[in-house]
């Protein structure tokens, strides 16, 4: 994972300011998120809002049931994978998972690995670990390939290069691939394809994520649009699939619901171009496919999340990205500002759980709580409630004293004072009177002649209205007498 130190969750303020002043990023974000959200809405209209709600309820119920019985379904899934000639590795931490993949590659003499897009791979920092072990990972999803060439990290769950414009990519290709610069999309994709095809032909090992793992059959399901997953899982001799333990679902019938929801939520597509169901290693009757099939089941904090009643639902996420696309904050600052792997509303919920509350105190506050995320989430994760809950948890943890929190010490005091003032209407009136007295000190005249107040953290960007000369309660009293 190419992390430059400037983008950490705790430098969210600076990260987002940088994003806001980057006009190209602003354009790229608007175009992509508007396109995805409107396509999603059209898709939902086609399904019918009532049917859509039913699907969401069903998906939520399946996830709830599976997550609450995760040990059972995981054992079943793992048992089936092994029965069908696959290998299962239980990785407790990110390091365990990386080590398993790197050592396997080393043992088999693999020098180059083709990879398909996988958020889990980002989460555990697999590319980095492979490079350290002297193995070259090659991203084969076009967006991921771009991001890898640029030595960056994805800024969206399923549109990794959303922060890049066409012209950015043209520059990048010209520089890194040593070709003549072109902005023709067809030419650029053809170029990437040429480069990647050669890698596919030679690679000994393919690494993918997993969208769903079917407990009943030991099948892993992968969805994509580019066909690179098909190649990653069929050409190399060894296929390693890495998955979070929450990806398991009970049976094939359940898959239907998720396939209906996922692509529509992500991009408005009725169905992704390729849906691969892969079951076990290649058997003697199979004509093609890898000889070795490994599944890495990654915990990396998920068991702990599972035991957390308030936040458990975050394990229901199917990584559709809809909550990012619809989030007014994400739309303005993009994914890198969140400073870790998962951006947007779901990122603001996952990151503090995965890297520690004290390392991501800014994220749960990076939301206007507009509720749009919860409304679009295909598995009905109550994202706003969780953000609220995390805010409370951060405040309750008085020992968390990071730089970002220091600024908030004053806030805590203000709310103590506020609560005292709001406790009785008499105190409330006193405070209001006081406010009216001091506002004379911060009054200013606007360009259009009206009056506003200079309020810190507000007035740099907007006008703040003065307190009314007479409050409602005063006016009401006059009226009643």
């Amino acid at each position, binding site marked *: 994972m190419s992390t430059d130190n400037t983008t950490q969750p705790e430098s969210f303020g600076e990260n987002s300011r940088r994003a806001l002043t980057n006009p190209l990023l602003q354009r790229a974000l608007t175009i992509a998120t508007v396109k995805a959200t409107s396509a999603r809405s059209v898709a939902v209209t086609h399904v019918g809002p009532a049917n859509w709600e039913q699907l969401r309820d069903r998906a939520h119920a399946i996830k709830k049931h599976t997550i609450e019985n995760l040990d059972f379904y995981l054992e079943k899934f793992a048992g089936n994978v092994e029965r069908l000639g696959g290998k299962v590795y239980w990785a407790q931490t990110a390091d365990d998972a990386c080590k398993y993949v790197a050592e396997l590659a080393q043992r088999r003499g693999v020098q180059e690995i083709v990879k398909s897009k996988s958020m889990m791979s980002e989460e555990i920092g697999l590319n980095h670990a492979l490079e350290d072990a002297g193995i070259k990972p090659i991203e084969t999803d076009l967006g991921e390939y771009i991001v890898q060439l640029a030595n960056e990290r994805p800024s969206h769950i399923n549109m990794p290069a959303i922060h890049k414009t066409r012209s950015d990519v043209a520059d990048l290709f010209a520089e890194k691939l040593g070709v003549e610069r072109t902005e023709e999309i067809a030419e650029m994709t053809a170029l990437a394809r040429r480069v990647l095809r050669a890698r596919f032909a030679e690679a000994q090992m393919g690494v993918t994520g997993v969208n769903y793992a079917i407990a009943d059959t030991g099948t892993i399901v992968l969805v994509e649009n580019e066909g690179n997953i098909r190649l990653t899982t069929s050409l190399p001799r060894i296929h390693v699939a890495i998955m979070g333990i929450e990806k398991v679902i009970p049976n094939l019938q359940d898959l239907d619901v998720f396939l209906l929801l996922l692509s529509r939520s992500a991009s408005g597509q009725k169905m992704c171009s390729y849906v691969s169901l892969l079951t076990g290693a290649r058997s003697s009757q199979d004509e093609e496919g890898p000889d070795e099939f490994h599944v890495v089941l990654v915990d990396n904090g998920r068991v702990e999340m599972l035991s957390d009643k308030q936040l458990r639902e975050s394990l229901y996420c199917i990584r559709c990205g809809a909550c990012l696309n619809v989030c*007014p904050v994400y739309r303005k600052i993009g994914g890198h500002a969140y400073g870790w792997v998962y951006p947007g509303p779901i990122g603001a919920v996952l990151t503090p759980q995965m890297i520690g509350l004290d390392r991501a105190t800014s994220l749960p506050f990076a939301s206007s709580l507009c509720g749009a995320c*919860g409304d679009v989430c295909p598995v009905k994760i109550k994202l706003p409630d969780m953000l609220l809950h995390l805010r409370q948890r951060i405040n309750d943890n008085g020992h968390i004293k990071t730089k970002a929190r220091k600024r908030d010490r004053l*806030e805590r005091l203000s709310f103590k004072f506020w609560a005292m003032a709001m406790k009785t209407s008499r105190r409330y009136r006193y405070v209001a009177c006081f406010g009216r007295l001091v506002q004379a000190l911060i009054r200013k005249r606007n360009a259009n002649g009206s009056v506003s107040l200079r309020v810190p953290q507000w007035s740099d960007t907007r006008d703040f209205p003065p307190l009314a000369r007479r409050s409602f309660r005063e006016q009401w009293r006059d009226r009643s007498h």
Partner: protein
Amino acid sequence: MKVSIFITCLVDQLYPQVGMAMANLLTRLRVEVTFNEEQTCCGQPAFNSGYHPEARSVAEQMLRLFARELESTDYIVAPSGSCVTMIRKYPELFADNAELKLQAEYVRQRLYELSHFLVEVLGVEDVGSEFEGRVTYHDSCHLLRELGVSRPPRKLINAVRGVEFVELDDAEVCCGFGGTFSVKHPEISAAIAAEKVACIERSRADAVVACDASCLMQIGGMLSRKGSAIRTLHLAELLASPVSK
């Protein structure tokens, strides 16, 4: 019918004309209006900032006040979808106190945001008002997504004599206020507001209407900073002036 009005702290202190407009409107519709001067704030600022003990202490006295009010009145009505949403969360906030929780559930059933109350409870869409001009409407987040109210305000606006109603692009997208978010992340908040204001300008409306003073403060603050002539109006203000005979 008797209604006790809840005048949110923002309306009380910054936009008293909204409260007066609401009271006058209800009176005009033959509703008996009372206002309990002991009220302060619903507790939302602290609750949404993650200060639950503080929110609880303020909310508790408001809950008791609302429950008392409902002994002599039929409904509580407020000119804010956001504060109504907060009060609707009281049962959850007082989940560990059986008595308060019960009270909260009772209050919740009798509590309405203004537009919702007019259309659902009073059954009026045409309140006999007049306004000359092109008007657009911004859905405030909590009213739309937590309370599910999107048609009533539109019906009410459409019925106003002289109004040319125009739908706003991305009407349901947040204005970027978000309570303390607006001061914690002022640049992001303002950038979101700028998008909203661009849509409003594109609508070529004379006035933008919303059902929450907080959104109007944000949108109005941005419009004013840009020196725009577009007015911000709370729904109550739009509905305030009766048709001149």
